């Protein structure tokens, strides 16, 4: 079998497995919603106070930029679970025994990611087509409309696919820690992309400045806007690196204020150099995927969980031998032919259990709560606890404005991987058949899990509460209390409904960044002087109960 054929089949099988999941339908629905948001103007691009006339150049470029922005964040989280799934399903162990090389396996994963993200590019390209036809502001030019998708969006997906493969190849970055680190990387990426727009560069000769493709479109749009509307403040008028002035020049994303003033966007004249320019990023993505082979352990479990393996080595081998010896005392032998067992004279070795009678605890909540709390707190490295403790102390002793702006937000992003286990743990570790078959699985477990999450948020944020109490800032204390309830409730609800920790990690990181860190007015769940977010938290708890209730008996 040729290597091409191997890659084709590996990638295709992976692609099929993902696209036949119910969750993929949800993703398609969300992508369609994104297209609709661009159509209505809730998401998209504006140049200062202006937007482009809905011609093919503007619609294609705008949709492509929104798409690359979204895919570079959500696309990464969407595809970054393929190697993990092969590990969990056991398929990886089978693949590991085949002659396929690590490089070929990782390229097949890159291809599969690329195909999956490509489906989304195709959907939004179709949405762009429909959008222009519905808007009827200019005649349709299919080539101009679709070129940005092929020449900017697809290369970007190649890069995202490569990053996802690389993160999955490195054991340290495979889990939630990798998700958090990627979010930081994403923030750097979008900021750098915005700041590096080459306003006065010659597009054809310039090097590809950013994978999102802003530099491909924004300068010509800025020139056109300035030419048609002299009051427009373009990027070249802004001092280098001044984010506020850049924001006045263009804004890309969600929740934009609607603008009616328009300019005519003529788009890009695609020459061969400009057409190939962004594809460099696609190739970089492929190279990143290949570089993953330096770290990828090829499903060798002995290299996957160092801590557990170490513990096993420390306590294991000789005790295992002792256990075997004890087992050997059970000297029962099968009687050939009849299939019955005959007891050895050493009958005392027969396993026996004392009957329990009707010993049931009428109120088992404290036990379940403590067990849930232990589950949340087990398995973290020592430095995690040290850092959490350090943040608590720092919050308690440093000035209030530093606490509000930096330390408390930091203290409440630190346990993100602890909270993200809530609600989905039973699915992820396949303990649900046992847990759901226990009495009152809904009311006995979910409230206990929720309270355990609240204890974590209260404990990690306790330094903030002390600071607010000392300062007599009751409004801040109210917001603190609401956040304590809100964060674990969000984790529990999203975990229970998605069966995965990634949804919470992704949503919370965004929410935390826009709200707690950047203090977005409505999104700042820490600084609200009311119990609004506590109310939302209780609603989320109700949602978690409904979600788990649905899973318990299907």
């Amino acid at each position, binding site marked *: 079998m040729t290597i091409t054929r191997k890659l084709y089949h590996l990638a295709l099988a992976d692609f099929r497995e993902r696209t036949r999941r119910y969750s993929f339908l949800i993703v398609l629905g969300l992508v369609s919603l994104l297209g609709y948001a661009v159509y209505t103007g809730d998401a998209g691009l504006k140049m200062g106070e202006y937007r482009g006339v809905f011609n093919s150049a503007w619609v294609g470029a705008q949709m492509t930029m929104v798409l690359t922005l979204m895919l570079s964040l959500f696309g990464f989280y969407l595809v970054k679970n393929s190697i993990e799934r092969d590990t969990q399903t056991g398929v990886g162990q089978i693949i590991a025994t085949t002659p396929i090389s690590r490089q070929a396996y990782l390229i097949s994963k890159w291809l599969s990611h690329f195909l999956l993200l490509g489906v989304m590019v195709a959907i939004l390209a179709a949405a762009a087509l429909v959008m222009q036809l519905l808007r009827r502001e200019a005649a349709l030019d299919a080539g101009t409309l679709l070129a940005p998708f092929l020449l900017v969006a697809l290369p970007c997906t190649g890069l995202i696919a490569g990053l996802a493969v690389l993160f999955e190849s490195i054991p340290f970055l495979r889990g939630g820690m990798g998700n958090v680190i990627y979010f930081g990387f994403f923030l750097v990426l979008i900021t750098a992309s915005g700041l590096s727009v080459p306003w006065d560069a010659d597009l054809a000769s310039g090097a590809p400045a950013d994978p999102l493709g802003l530099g491909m479109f924004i300068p010509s749009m800025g020139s056109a806007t300035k030419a048609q509307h002299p009051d427009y403040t373009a990027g070249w008028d802004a001092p280098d690196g001044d984010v506020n002035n850049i924001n006045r020049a263009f804004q890309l994303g969600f929740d934009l204020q609607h603008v009616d003033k328009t300019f005519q966007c003529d788009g890009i004249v695609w020459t061969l150099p400009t057409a190939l320019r962004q594809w460099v990023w696609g190739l970089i993505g492929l190279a990143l995927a290949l570089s993953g082979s330096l770290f990828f352990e090829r499903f060798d479990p002995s290299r996957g969980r160092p801590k557990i393996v170490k513990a*096993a080595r420390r306590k294991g081998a000789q005790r295992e031998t002792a256990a075997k010896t004890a087992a050997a005392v059970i000297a029962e032998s099968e009687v050939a032919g009849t299939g019955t067992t005959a007891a050895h004279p050493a009958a005392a070795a027969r396993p026996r259990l*004392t009957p329990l009678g009707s010993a049931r605890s009428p109120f088992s909540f404290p036990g379940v709560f403590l067990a849930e709390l232990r589950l949340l707190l*087990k*398995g973290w490295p020592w430095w995690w606890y040290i850092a959490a403790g350090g943040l608590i102390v720092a919050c308690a002793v440093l000035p209030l404005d530093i606490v509000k702006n930096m330390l408390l937000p930091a203290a409440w992003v630190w346990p993100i991987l602890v909270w993200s286990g809530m609600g989905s743990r039973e699915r992820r570790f396949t303990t649900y*058949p046992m847990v*759901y078959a*226990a009495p009152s699985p809904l009311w006995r477990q979910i409230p206990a899990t929720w309270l355990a999450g609240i204890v974590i948020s209260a404990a990690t944020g306790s330094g903030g509460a002390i600071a607010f109490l000392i300062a007599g800032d009751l409004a801040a204390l109210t917001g603190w209390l609401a956040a304590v309830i809100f964060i674990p409730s969000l984790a529990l609800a999203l975990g229970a409904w998605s069966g995965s920790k990634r949804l919470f990690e992704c949503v919370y990181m965004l929410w935390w960044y826009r709200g707690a860190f950047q203090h977005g007015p409505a999104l700042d769940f820490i600084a609200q002087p009311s119990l609004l977010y506590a109310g939302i938290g209780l609603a989320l708890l109700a949602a978690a109960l409904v979600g788990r209730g649905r899973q318990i008996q299907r």
Partner: protein
Amino acid sequence: MTIQSSLQNQGKVLPAVGKTCPLVIQDLGKQYRRDFWGLRHFTLELDSGIIGLLGPNGAGKSTFMRMLATITKPTEGKITWRGVDIATRPDPLRDVLGYLPQDFGVYPNLSALEFLEYMAAIKGLPAKTARQRIDELLQVVNLVDAARRPLGSYSGGMKQRIGIAQALLNDPQLLIVDEPTAGLDPEERVRFRSLLANLAGNRIILLSTHIVSDVEATAAEIVLINHGSLLVRATPEALLASLDGKVWSWLAPSDRLDALKQSHLVTSTVRRAEGMLVRVVCEDSPHPQAQLIDPTLEDVYLYQVSHNGGRQ
């Protein structure tokens, strides 16, 4: 005459008629797709003792067990535990249920002790009772020395033993074990069978497997299932008696084996220097040299499956 009618004529089929059984399954069905039922028209009444559930892969055993374990809701029919429909009120059964699923996981960062404490709390056991019970169970499943190691470092067989321990935590009245000996070494398998035999008193133990020797060693009754339907329910003795005079063995040339498999139900073959020692189930002597031998449950199982639609 089929085996089923033979069993009925001997009066050895055991629908527990006229007695109030704690677990009653009536016309149970589970539909997965429009054109596929995992289980259908399944009726059974179960009293205390070990009941072996035998069937090939895909027969519907796990579907049946998941419905009994209140994990899956039936599409039709109902299951009642002491008169209570478990679909509408599952908790009376869950209070006394022990369930070892075929596929299950554990929390890799917890030790065996911590995991069992967690499951005991989830099952509502008081802390003191739970501690005593866990100590006993760790001895029973032979994991005392490994009790404080993280479960992530356990072998497959050790995890299976933890599964067995958690199923027994609440001293269940209904114990459902799905392929319990999968992954266990022979020593542990014998130990587990012995444990089941000891536990079978006033409780119902439903043991699902396709390892006939497990059922042979422990079960007081056997339920055979295929294609989502109940084939037969009988004691092992009745099942064995139903094949009396129908199991033959002789030494056949190796090159005749394929042809023999086409014409007869061959239940086992053993290579010998002179050829193949074959074991065949059929009404009349299949070969002049064939000799009647005692049937085994494996013969019964293979006969029933092959005469009722074969494997999935």
